């Protein structure tokens, strides 16, 4: 790496040294707790759509915790956070455009 890249890397490493390790264990505990909630929900007699909504919401929270703390996105500048996450969400949203077609097929049938 060039010298200025090494400088940036060293500054990032210095920032990381200021954050304690205990936060990682707290996040890990929260992730395991959310997993336990999800497993508990699968054994409940709930409406499928309601259960899926809760499960997807918990999955998003888990993903945010992992990206923020384990992948250190929390400590990046806001431009990095906005550009990367918004572009990912936009691409995933483009895929979801075709979901109503799946529901339509059930009522329309296939010849």
């Amino acid at each position: 790496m060039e010298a200025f890249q090494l400088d940036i890397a060293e500054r990032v490493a210095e920032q990381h040294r200021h954050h304690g390790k205990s936060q990682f264990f707290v996040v890990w505990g929260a992730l395991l707790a959310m997993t336990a909630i999800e497993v508990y929900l699968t054994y409940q007699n709930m409406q499928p759509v309601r259960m899926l909504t809760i499960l997807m919401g918990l999955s998003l929270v888990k993903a945010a915790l992992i990206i923020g703390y384990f992948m250190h996105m929390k400590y990046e500048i806001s431009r990095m956070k906005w550009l990367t996450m918004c572009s990912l969400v936009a691409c995933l949203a483009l895929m979801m455009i075709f979901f109503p077609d799946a529901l339509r097929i059930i009522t329309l049938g296939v010849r």
Partner: protein
Amino acid sequence: MAEATLPHDIPTLYEPSLFGTYSKKIGMWLFLLSDSLTFGALLYAYSYGRISTPNWPTPFHSASIVNATMMTAFLLTSSLTMVLAVRASVDGNAKSQRLWLLATMVCGLGFVILHGREWSKLIAEGLTLPVFPKIPGQEVSGEFANVAKTVPQFAATFFGLTGMHMLHVTMGIVYLGVVALRRNFIPILLIGWLAAWLGTPTYSPFHYAAHVLLLAAIVISIILWIKPKVYDSSDVEVAGCTGTSWIWSGCLFFLSCI
């Protein structure tokens, strides 16, 4: 690329990074985003099939849910050990870094073994793909014998999605092994290949996946042995070490064809 546009007598004149961090990190994030889209596409395919098929099978009973919970716990723990390894690297503690990397590999290996057991159970009950080898002497009369015929997209999307995930975890284990142990990892990889090759029946998909391990050993041995010898050594050493490396890699390749 930047050097091509800037005069060489002003080495420090670079534009500040758009993302405020160094290029390797930005490159890694771009790769992660593209990988997320790959898995997003596979998840979308599974979800689309699930919504649009009225007789979608539900083969995952209590034992599978317990198995999946343990697999999730292994992966979450591997995330923790990985971030602790990164932290040890930042603190300059090489020994601690290596131990945390090995712990990450153990968690990943636990995930792969549990997932392999889940796959073997489903395949034994009749849920297969046409590309999977047939189990000799076994009548397909399990719980999912009809599923492969009536809802073939279930097996395709399930094995495609989970197989892609398992491939990522396996490649991650190999990569971490190379980072943690360098050349010392190659004998371990070979022992892993032997164990997978001898421990799985020939009709199991994992028997063929074991050869991927061997191929990984060949590629890594070429990269770790030949590259530094060719570029860093004298002509005599190059001839000797290159020849040894090629003989070694050739033997491994021959074994992989068995």
